[in-house]
Structure formats: C-alpha cells, structure tokens
C-alpha cells in the first residue's frame, strides 16, 4: 500500500472516531453530530493524505512525527477558529488535543509503514 493511501485511510478512521467521541465528551452537540463526524472525517482524510505525501518525500521518523503534529494541530485550530467565528463555543481542548494527537499517530504510522508491491 502506498503511504498517502495508508495515511488517508488511517486519518479517516481516526477522524470518524474523533467525531463520534464528541457524543461522549460534549453531549450537548448531539443534534449536530452528523456534521461534526463529516467534518472530523474530512479533516482526518486531509491530514492523512498530507502526512502520507510528506512521509513519501521525507524518510525520517522524528520529522514525520513533528510534521504530523503540526498538520493535526493546524487543521484542528482551523476548526476551532470556524467554531468561534460562527459564534459557537470553541472547545479548544476537546478539538486541539485530539486533533494534534491524531496527526502525530498518522505521522508515526506513515513513517514506519513499508510500501510493498500490492
């Protein structure tokens, strides 16, 4: 499997999970859960793709992790910014922390992943 594809899948799965977990961590968001999950999944897919491409170009575990962390944080920050801009609560911790960690995980995984002729 190629690294961008692997990153995208992993990011997507984690994104879905990340979105669904809002039900537990912020039950008042339940009415908007569909859009939260879609948004979170999209964010995960995008992060996974970017990090996967990066892993293809740069073969370095530390750099991959740092890049993943930055991408995860940046995309999460964007979501927080959009929340705040639309007058909703920011959920800084609930979004920034998991988002960054998901980026880090994808960064690590894509660096360790071995591309094999499928």
């Amino acid at each position, binding site marked *: 499997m190629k690294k961008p594809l692997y990153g995208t899948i992993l990011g997507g799965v*984690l994104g879905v999970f990340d979105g669904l977990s809002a039900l537990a961590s912020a039950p008042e968001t339940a009415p908007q859960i569909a859009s939260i999950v879609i948004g979170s999944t999209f964010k995960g897919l995008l992060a996974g793709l970017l990090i996967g491409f990066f892993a293809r170009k740069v073969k370095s575990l530390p750099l991959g992790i740092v890049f993943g962390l930055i991408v995860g944080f940046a995309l999460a920050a964007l979501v927080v910014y959009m929340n705040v801009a639309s007058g909703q609560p920011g959920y800084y911790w609930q979004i920034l*922390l998991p988002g960054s960690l998901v980026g880090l*995980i994808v960064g690590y995984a894509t660096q360790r992943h071995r591309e094999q002729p499928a």
Partner: protein
Amino acid sequence: MSTNAPGLSDQALERLRDAAELPEPDPARYAVRERIGRGGMGTVYRARDLRLQRDVALKVLHVGEDSGELAARLTREAGILAHLEHPGIVPVHDVGILADGRPYYTMKLVQGQPLADLAPGRSRADLLRLFARICEPVAFAHSRGVVHRDLKPHNVMLGEFGEVLVLDWGVSKRAGQNDSPAASNAVATPDTGAGRVLGTQGYMAPEQARGESAYVDARADVYSLGKLLAHLVSVSDAPRMPRALAAIVRKATAPQPEGRYMDASHLARDVQRFLAADPVEAHRENAWEQTLRLYRRHRPLVLLIAAYLVMRLVLILWRARTE
C-alpha cells in the same frame, strides 16, 4: 622393551603431536609458518605461498588414502569450487597430496574471528540477522548444486570489516569420507568416542552421520544450519526461544530430510519473517499468538492509540468534573 618406557607428559604429548603432523609441502612453493587451527578432519597452518608471495591457509587432512582416487576427487572438487564465486565463500586456491600421502589444500587466509569464539550476550535480533547472512553463501551454493556438508561454528568466520565468510567448502568433508559401503558401515557405528569431542558430530545431519552419502543434499546443510541457529540463540541475551523460532529450529533439524526446509534460502526467509514479526512457515499460530505477534510488530502504534484513548477519557472526566 618399550612396554615400560615412562609415559609422556601432557605437554610433551602436545609438542610431539605438533611435530608429527607438521606438513612438508613442496619447499619451492610453500613455507609453513605456524599452526592456526585444528579440527577433526585436519589441521590448518598459516603458510607462505612463495610463488605468489602471499600468505595462505594450508589445511592438511589427518589421514590420506592409499588409492589415487582421493587426489582425483580433490581436483574435481576444486574445479567445482573455482566456479563458486561469492563474497561469502572462501575460495580454495590449490589442492595436492603431501609426500606422506596426506591430502592438503590451500585457501585464502581469512583475518577474523571464528563464529565459535563469538562472545555471548549479543542481542538475539543481531544474531538472527547474522544467521541470515551466514545462510546467503550457503543458499548461493545450493542454487549451484553444491552442498557444504560440514557447517559448524568453526567454519564460519567473521571478518574484521563485518564480512561473514563460510570456509571449508565441500573439500574437507568429502576428502576424508570414503564412500565405499564398508566405510559407510564404520561411520554408522554407534560410537560416542572421543573423536566426537571435536563437535562436528552435533551439527551433522542424521542421514549423513549414518553414512548414507547418496541421500545427502542441501537439506543436510539445512540441518547443520538449524543447529547453528539454535547455538546462536543459546548464546544470545535472550536464550529462551519463542514458539515460532523454536518451530523454525525444529523444522530445520527434522530427523527426516523431507521434514526440513528445501534449502538454505527457504530457512533464511523464514528467519527473516520471524525478525519482521511476520507469520513463519514452520509454525501455525493460534489467535492469541497472532494478536501478540501483531502487537509486538506494531507496538508503538498500539501504544499511541492507547494514549489517544486515555486522553479522550481524561477529557470526558475533566468535563464531568467541571460541570
């Protein structure tokens, strides 16, 4: 009468033995320097090749043969080996018979340390990688139809620059082994005599020890490699074998050749699978073993995801408290 001559001391015995076996090859060609090793089949000396002005290892077999057949066989072997070019195979330069009938051959003098002298306590993964490299030249030879027949820690040298070299190709084993039925019977003798101290016995495949030379093929080497693998693991920092690795050793050292890996490359591949935490051919794992292996293989990832989940939990708890 000599019956009552005083017995020799251990020291005198050693010196006499050295003296009695000192070879006298053509003085125009070789000058024998010192003994560098001794084994069940022969003794190895450092010698100067006077014609080519280089040092070589000269191995002299303990016993010769009365017939001229041996010389012919040695020459034939050397011919085969001359075509076996691989960085892990130490080439034979020359073969011949000493005036007293003992066969000898010369080969490249390898600087390094025999595997037998390897200090214990290195990491198992390191030694398994080393093992895979030992398999390379053997696998190459197998692909060319050549069987080593005497693989053991003394025949593997670790060069000063990380080279892995396999010595004593074919010649030594075949040279000393009479293939006539009578000799095969003698080899088949259930004997645990002192000659076995030399260690080769523990590495020799059963069919080979029984003298069934007609059945000896690459799988006999696989057997010896399996023993070598077990030896390496036993001197590593983790001598207890996981089940998959034990299964590899078991398969390589199966009593019947049919139960073993086909050749050295198949064995090496399975060891590499083990190293990569892939499922090995020799062992069908159950669900629990599979989970454990996958966990080991992806340990950091599993731990990261666990950390993520813990963080999620902490966020939930934190929110529950602040409300």
